């Protein structure tokens, strides 16, 4: 009898413990929400044409203008953007803005969500400059923005701008940094949903010297790649490039540059362990003796630095230039490229990138780009969007878009990162000790 009772007790305890542990609901302290924050596409300046490629005709959008709060579908996979910036509902597909001035210049940039800190390595404040910084506040309260500047003469006095709700402001570079040729601009919103853009446009008298978007870099780094620099050769000789570097820290940086091209990878003369003074924008002329029409730079530094490459080109008989900026390592992403048909340049030791081209007719072309050091791929005609489905590690990318007006480039980086935030939950303990 006792043995039976003992067995019963043991069985009951076992069953209870096992069932309780099995049934035990996993109580997660946090639940997370994953969303793509809304992105802002820059306004089109006077005398320019602007188009935005989107992933869907139904992408909700609204103009960033006072008293506008209603989202409406864009109704086109490539819509014209006017003098007001546009807020697009965040999605996994990064939209590209293309702006051009007839027979003068063209440039591309990604529509991006508000950022905390943006560095623009490019632009000039000298007499040729018609460049400007656009500060777009897509929030519903005033935005306060700090703008800090560096030039060839060192750090300049920063300025603070207040941008009214649901509006934007543009600041001329030559007013920010009078008579300063080589600029690096840092935009830091103190409050507000601010997206910043820089357009570098230069003229000499009435003659246009070209123009381009200067894409932003989020943070200085010690190791990065500037991918897809177009290399135009005239008389079998590469036109000049300028590598602009800033070491924003409190110490000089020692920088080494690897040039990566189909003609081989090497360190250009004078770019091995080159010292860069602190807080002085340094322009280094780069004239590689290569025949390929595109190359990339892999830059190492002992201190966090910022860098981009200025390249001059001739398009349809007129001068243009473009700014290639550093990109982050490529991850699977999607790009809306309606009407752009970009050439994508990948840089990396071993390149293996899976690409899906979604055509306007609904078809999908699947391609795998393989190679080493540098490889390029051009989107087929009629491509609405491209999706990078897989990518090997250590690969960087950028897009090049050519038109009769000029060439534009953009880094292959998502404009809106999937943000994963803890969902706050209601709990009355909040108002208890």
């Amino acid at each position, binding site marked *: 009898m*006792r043995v039976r*009772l*003992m067995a019963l*007790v043991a069985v*009951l*305890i076992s069953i*209870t*413990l096992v*069932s*309780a*542990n099995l*049934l*035990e*609901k996993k*109580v997660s*302290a*946090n639940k997370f*929400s994953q*969303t793509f*924050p*809304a992105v802002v596409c820059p306004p089109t300046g006077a005398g320019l044409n602007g188009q935005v490629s989107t992933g869907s005709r139904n992408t909700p959008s609204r103009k960033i203008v006072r008293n506008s*709060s209603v989202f409406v579908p864009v109704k086109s996979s490539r819509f014209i953007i006017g003098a007001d910036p546009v807020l697009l509902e*965040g999605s996994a597909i990064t939209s590209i803005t293309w702006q051009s001035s007839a027979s003068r210049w063209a440039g591309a940039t990604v529509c991006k*969500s*508000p950022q*905390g800190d943006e560095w623009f390595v490019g632009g000039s404040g000298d007499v040729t400059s018609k460049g400007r910084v656009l500060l777009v506040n*897509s*929030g*519903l*309260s005033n*935005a306060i923005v700090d703008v800090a500047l560096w030039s060839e003469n060192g750090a300049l006095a920063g300025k603070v701008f207040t941008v009214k*709700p*649901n509006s934007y402001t543009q600041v001329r570079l030559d007013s920010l940094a009078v008579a300063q040729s080589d600029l690096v601009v840092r935009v830091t*919103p*103190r*409050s*507000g*949903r*601010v997206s910043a853009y820089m357009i570098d446009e230069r003229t000499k008298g009435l003659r246009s010297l070209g123009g381009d978007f200067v894409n932003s870099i989020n943070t200085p780094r010690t190791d990065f790649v500037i991918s897809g620099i177009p290399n135009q050769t005239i008389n079998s000789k590469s036109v000049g490039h300028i590598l602009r570097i800033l070491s924003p820290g409190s110490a000089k940086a020692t920088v080494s540059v690897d040039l990566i091209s189909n003609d081989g990878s090497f360190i250009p003369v004078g770019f091995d362990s080159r010292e860069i003074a602190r807080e002085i924008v340094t322009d280094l002329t780069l004239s590689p003796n290569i025949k390929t029409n595109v190359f990339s730079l892999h830059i190492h530094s002992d201190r966090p630095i910022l860098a981009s490459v200025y390249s001059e080109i001739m398009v349809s008989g007129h001068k243009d230039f473009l700014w290639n900026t550093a990109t982050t390592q490529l991850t699977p992403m999607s790009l809306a490229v309606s009407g752009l048909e970009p050439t994508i340049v990948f840089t990396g030791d071993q390149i293996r990138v899976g690409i899906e081209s979604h055509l306007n007719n609904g078809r999908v072309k699947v391609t795998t780009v393989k190679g080493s050091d540098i490889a390029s791929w051009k989107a087929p005609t009629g491509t609405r969007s491209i999706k990078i489905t897989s990518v090997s590690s250590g690969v960087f990318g950028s897009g090049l878009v050519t038109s009769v007006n000029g060439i534009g480039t953009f880094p292959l980086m998502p404009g809106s990162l999937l*943000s994963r*935030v*803890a*969902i*706050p*939950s*209601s*709990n*009355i*303990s*909040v*108002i*208890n*000790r």
Partner: protein
Amino acid sequence: MAESAKRNDAHHVTAILVVHDGATWLPEVVASLASQTRAIDSTFAIDTGSVDSSTKLLSNSRIPFVSISREAGFGDAINSALENIPEIQSANDWLWFIHDDCAPSRDALAQLLRAIEDRPHVAIVGPKLRGWYDRTHLLEAGVSIAGNGARWTGLELREFDQGQRDGIKDVLGVSTAGMLVKREVFEELGGFDSNLSLFRDDVDLGWRARVAGHSVIVATDAVAYHAEASASERRAVDVTHAFLHRPLLLDRRNASYVLLANSSAWILPWLSLRLLVSAGVRSLGFLIAKLPGYAADEILAVGLLLIHPGLLLNARKARRSQRLLSSRVVANFIPPRWKQFRLSVNRSFETIRERFFPTPTPIESILDPLSEDEDLLTPVPARNWKSLIVRPEVLGTIFLLILTLLWSRHRYGPISGGALSTTPSGAMDLWRIYADSWHGVGMGSAFATPTWIAVLALGSTFTFGNATALVAILFWISPILIMWSMHMLVRTFTARRWLLMGASVSYALSPVAIAAINQGRLGTIATLMCAPLIVKALPRLRAIEVQSWKFIFGLSLIVGAVTSFSLPFYLASSIFLLAGIAKDYMHFRQNPEGILFKERLSRWLLLLATPFALCLPWSLEALTHPTRFLIEPGISVAGGLANEAILANPGGIGSIPWWFVSPVLLVILVAIFSSTQARFYASWGFSFLLAATFVSSLAISAHGNASNTHVWVGTWLAITTLCAVVSGVVILDGLRERLANSNIHYRHILAGLGVVSVLAYSLTASMWITTTGANSPLQVNRTSVLPPFLGISPGTKTLVIRNLSVGATDQLTFFVARENDAFLGDPDVAPKSSPAIDKAIRDLVDGSGLTSSKVLSAHGIKFLFMKNPVDDQLVRSVDGIGGFMRNSSTDAGIVWRVTGVGERLVFTDENSKSTPMLIPDDGAPVVTRSPGTLTLAENYDSSWQVIQNGARLVRTKNEYGLPQFLAPTPGEFFLIHDGTVRRGWLSLQFIVLLSVLVMILPAGRRKREISVEELT
């Protein structure tokens, strides 16, 4: 006897003996009349239709008599007698009224006549009345009537006659039992009032005699022994005016009649009111004493009189014709109110004293007369301080007291934390919270406030209305209360004082007790304190059918009290009771004659239903939210996991670490194999332990916490621990002797293991609670979460966002606060978070919420407060998203003002222009100047009403589910939350509570149920 024949006075006395079924007392009465030292000149008897042997006795005693109708009253009887005796001869003719249950002493008549000898103005004289059975019991020495109609004798309860009232005194009246009245005056006054057939006719006659200019005295040298047979319901009252033949009814009716017929006219309204009120109060008293018949008598008596105003008018007219003096001449004989009050208080105290400290009956020993020398041999108990201190009870209490002093060192002051929210300062605040039909918690709720709020409010009486002090003291002394509660239980199982104390202290230091105190778990603490008292009553439930209703209701009240704090306890007790019912049913099916199934079932069901009814409407609401039966009061703080629960440790923050393994499981496992009654308790303990283990694996979202939280199983483990302690005591009681007399075997090892584990646990637990354990979540809290300026404007809603530690991680949480921190009861009535607000806040946090401020503003939220430490990214997001204007940034946190209207009541006109409307505190109306819509930023509830010109406006829901009212015309509006239903429920609850209390209080006895010895 020689003296008895003497008649050396000029008086002629005719004794009139009124008989009505008085055979019990008549022989002695007749004998007393016959043996008077001053012989009665003539005796005549009136029989009012006796059905016993009274007439035969009268015949045998040769007293002339006539029989009249049974319905005839005392006055009628006297009138009949007067018709049958000779006419009045002289002014010295006296009538001596004798009841058939009143025996005058031998010299009664002589003393009465002696008293009037030198007092010619005296018309009425009466003897001192003593009890028939207890002849030292003083019944009356003159009588009067109080302003509330009570018969006033001025005597204390069961006053012993030691001559303290002796003397010849002027009185308002004397009892008709033994009343000697001058015949001339009697006839002049018209005799007894025919409307007073019985009772109060004596006072009425005395009153009338006094205002006619005569004197009424009591001569205490004359004594009569009165059985008060009619008043004490020893015989039926069959007189004409005795509606329903109820003596009390007749007495009260006649009392009112006497007062209203004889008093001055100007005092009548006040007198009528006083009679009505006193009738009400007395009927309430009778109801409490469970004497509904008497209660009805009180009300009916006044009613009967008031529906016959003609009677009173005639009576007053008749008295006016006889009155020579003002009615105020009797004022000196009407007892003042303070005197009545003092006597009532004295009587109440005496009753209570007698109940708790009964007068000991002296025990007489046959040795007593011889014990003078033996006293010297009796050892005198030597008690000194040392012997007192080394008593286990004292040592245990001192030990626990010192431990508590150290343990509670962070709790000296207003406490909150853990599951306990802030206590409002005053008991009135708690009552208000309890009575409110709408609670301003979050977006508001109409949930029923839990009953424990009312219990705490009631308990605050002991701290002079200071609820904060009550809660602090409760947690401070709870270990000692828990210990003594267990002590009361286990002393029924053992007389070994060290074992008793050890078990009680172990119970007070059990893991569940420590965790409950550290986490501020009121429900578990109530269970730990009260469950031993309930378990103590369990053995009586084996014979539940013979238990009195008083016991059943008393037990129900205790269960109800614990239920009010802990619905899990009600669930546990219901399981036990249903098991009892099921067991009875099985027995009944097997042996229908064996047990009194219905009697048992009715008591089981009462035990089941009464606690539930006592907690209405909260308990009823729980039926629609069944998870509440698993949740304890207060903020939802996670308990431990199943693997902790199996060790009788409820877990959670502030609980003792699991590896302080308590011996509860071991004791239960050992006791379950016992052959003693320990097995019974161990079996229940084991069942509740398994239940606790299983329930602890569940996670529920409740009490203002939207996240699923592991259920706290404190109540279940409290019962388990209790069962383990009782089982252990039963096993250990006498075990030492048994083990000492047996060879070493596994019992020795188990016993040793058990004792060592108890000692080891108690020691380590004591050390833990005085060190690490003292840093519990429940601590003194003198600061508020919300910055003070957010609470300046009443009802201001502030969205508070804060990172809270949940286990090892931080969780971003929010709540809509209104001007202050969470008060007691707020978590229990907190509504579910609004989906619209949830989304707005989620969007705000992830940076996508461009309309968050609009949504929050629509819900009346004026401020957003992010408590430090803040998340910089989140701050940037709020700064940037728009609609939030920074107001301040301090050490406490950052405050933003939400742009928009953000008021509790918003008026939107036809042009969609919104205007905030201030709701006046004084109940003044809200005024609008155009048609439109009124939107209330509170959760929707059908009791929200807006009234314009006495009509209710149409109520709808807006896009966020908030109530809005269509106001087609401008004007004044009153916003109310209709609390009629809540008030109705509270009334019902009060009635249930009152009924239970009435059933528990000692029952009054009808006079006929009181022994005659006790009465007289």
